[in-house]
């Protein structure tokens, strides 16, 4: 399989993402934000960072960059798109995913390991996990507090579009295990079609047992298994 990692000025987790994708055999190439064409790929990744400095609103400027028009087009054609952290923020800013990421409830940047409960493993993104599985991956963000109106939240829940939720080590979902104030402990969501996943935590920083664990590895292996080895 082939993948593309979009790099905006201010993106800073492209190296981590490229490492994780390479390890899974997803053959990543980096694509600069001013490009207007994407190579033929099975997966587009928008990685973390502070695109354009995020001085206006996290992900806002990137949502209007040249390459994003192409990302939208490819997503509509069914190509899989993964947005992590700032990438999730960009996807909500572009309208590819509903809701918004607000400043963390405690108003501070937070970097630590969290537990995530896999709510819906019926997409290539989470096919490497059992349904209900608990993974340990880190978060590192200032604006990860997921917000949407009640109707949208009900729709996300009703349509199985909540991908992962913050939880305890045993999978119980409580306010205590919510690191940023996200509504209904939402850490990641799908679009209706299930070919776009946005998530705040960083699976790409949990792919090596000596470097913080392998909680994120099944995500990349699962993607490679489901989307490869056709090309």
């Amino acid at each position, binding site marked *: 399989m082939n993948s593309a990692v979009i790099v905006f*000025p201010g993106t800073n987790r492209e190296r981590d993402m490229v490492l994780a994708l390479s390890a899974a055999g997803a053959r990543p190439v980096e694509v600069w934000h001013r490009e207007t064409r994407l190579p033929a790929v099975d997966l587009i990744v928008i990685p973390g960072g502070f695109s354009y400095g995020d001085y206006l609103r996290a992900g806002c400027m990137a949502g209007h960059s040249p390459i994003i028009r192409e990302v939208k087009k490819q997503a509509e054609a069914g190509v899989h798109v993964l947005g992590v952290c700032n990438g999730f923020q960009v996807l909500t800013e572009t309208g590819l995913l509903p809701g918004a990421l607000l400043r963390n409830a405690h108003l*501070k940047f937070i970097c630590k390991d969290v537990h995530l409960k896999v709510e819906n493993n019926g997409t290539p993104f989470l096919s490497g996990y059992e349904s209900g599985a608990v993974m340990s991956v880190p978060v*590192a963000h200032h604006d990860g507090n997921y917000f949407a109106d009640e109707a949208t939240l009900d729709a996300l829940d009703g349509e199985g579009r909540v991908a992962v939720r913050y939880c305890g080590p045993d999978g119980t979902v409580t306010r205590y295990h919510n690191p940023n104030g996200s509504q209904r402990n939402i850490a990641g969501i799908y679009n209706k079609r299930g070919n776009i996943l946005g998530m705040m935590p960083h699976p790409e920083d949990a792919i090596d047992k000596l470097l913080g664990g392998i909680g994120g590895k099944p995500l990349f292996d699962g993607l490679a298994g489901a989307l490869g080895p056709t090309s």
Partner: protein
Amino acid sequence: MSAMTPAVFAEHGLSEAEYDKILDILGREPNLTELGVFSVMWSEHCSYKSSKKWLKKLPTEAPWVICGPGENAGVIDIGDGQAAVFKMESHNHPSYIEPYQGAATGVGGILRDVFTMGARPVANMNVLRFGDASHPKTRHLVAGVVSGIGGYGNCVGVPTLGGECAFHGSYDGNILVNAMTVGIADADKIFYSAATGAGNLVVYVGSKTGRDGIHGATMASAEFTENSDEKRPTVQVGDPFTEKLLIEACLELMATDVIVAIQDMGAAGLTSSSFEMASKGGVGVDLNLDQVPAREENMTAYEFLLSESQERMLMVLKPGEEDTARKIFEKWELDFSVVGRLTDTGRMVIREKGEVAADLPIDPLALASPEYDRPWVVAPPPADVCAADVPAPGPIFALLKNLMGSPDLCSKRWIWEQYDHLVMGDTVQRPGGDAAVVRVRDTQKALAITTDCTPRYCLADPVMGGKQAVAETWRNLTAVGAQPLAITDNLNFGNPERPEIMGQFVGAIEGIGAACTVLEVPVVSGNVSLYNETNGEAILPTPAIGAVGLLTDYTQAVGLAFPGDGLAVYLIGETQGHLGQSLYLREIAGREEGKAPPVDLDRERKIGDFVRDEIGRGVITSCHDISDGGLLVALAEMALAANIGITITAGGGSLSDHAWAFGEDQARYLVTAAGKHFVALAEVARVPVTCIGRTGGVALVWGDQTLTLDELRAAHEDWLPDYMAG
């Protein structure tokens, strides 16, 4: 031009003698712009005029040192054609005045010092000192500094891997913010700052120049008074996004072969970068200020030259390579402007709107700037404290719990969870251990990095305190299994014009030098911050040390957490029960007294080498050095990290319990080891070893005393968040 009166040059921080020297050098009166240039270049911050006589005494060489002090950062060989580039630098004065921006731009400045040399920054560290927790400004300063360090490092995308943070009343009016960056470069692609080749173009890149930070270096070279808050406009404003672009653009340019010399514009901005580059290369410069990208209108030559606007670099390009460089900076949407040309005159000629705004000889302002031999005295050593005279007001475990929940020993999680310590995907050991460990991308190697200093020892005995600061960083690196290679020092002291302060400085240098020699860790870079005083009250002498070591295989690194149940825990080293200047004495008995614990460098070396060898062989499976708070504190930290308890079976013998438990004797480690022969191994190596207990359970147990990990954790983890919540 205004007439030069004593009031004008005094306002520029220049003494009458210094002004007379200027008249000698120029053979005429300087104009105001020229006076401003002298003022910053001869400031303590830029010229090191009080310290350089003594800095020359530090050992700076070893076969693995590629570049020692004098450049933007130090460079050491880490094998396979790679180099580690690092330095620590202070941003104390600005951080007190405006904590968020002061700390943020401190991080920005030290990052630039490192990538200027061709290295990709891979780790940030810091040393923080705040005033007493009860001081009304402390909480606000902690919040601002931490969020500034995080705000800058997180956005730039370089992990902040830890550091140290402590509190003491002597820092009430002068906090310390020392930031360290470590980068990785190809050993044959290091970039230096010496400008050479008359006719070569001088290029300005990065952000535009504004009026911020004018006279920051002069401010950092004076004591504070009650009115220091009025100096807020001299603090710069950081833009980490532009810094990130600047890193990528510079590294992209450095992959080509067009740069002759490069330096960042730090303290004293365009002035210091141009003068220092020209002085090192023995050339002159024609500088045209009309070409300097300006953020504001109608800026004067004085303002252009003294601005400390951030995220700017100056470089000299090879002839005919202007377009190659310009294209790269345009891609990254950064300013790029040819602002001058090198000459062979040895003079800096600065033009603005067709007029000569300044015409100065270069060397007297840079390499040949003033050097002072300030008078110094050695303070009489304090009387020793005898353990029998120190009370133990309660059961040992109750005292342990108090200590673990005290400001200096409590968990600093509240701080480092605000730092992105994982970005770049190479973090092997996170904050909270003895040293951070970061993998060198695409290799098995890893760098271990630590920062440390024990200022209360330095006050009691500057020589011993200097030794101890180096020894402790060396021990920290050893405890994760790394071979220590070199250090950077950030020497924070009070007013050097006072002989007793100068005596502290001289003593600390002597101690640092002695430790560097025996432990074979040369000083490759550093920074001096003097005048850390408010209304005549100096900070504790704080020679902060940042040390870097190498692990040839990152999978061999060990941490401090007990690796399992049922394991013997060994104490390595000798315990004398030294309570003088200990945290126990200060926190429990409320006394800041006694002698600093003696540091025996040869013993330090012998014991440390043994520990490192046994980690490398896989015999030692977890390790923690014993420092602040003594043996029981170190043991408690290991237990908490693992969430595994320990039953203590040893005791102090002839020592009283509190001296054994909390004495701060040096050259000691706690370890667990695989196999049954560890004691024999240590005996063969003539290293003192004692089995002090066995891991297991969910509590610390010693005789009839029990302290559960939950209770201990609550005391340890809650202090800082509770304090910050106010």
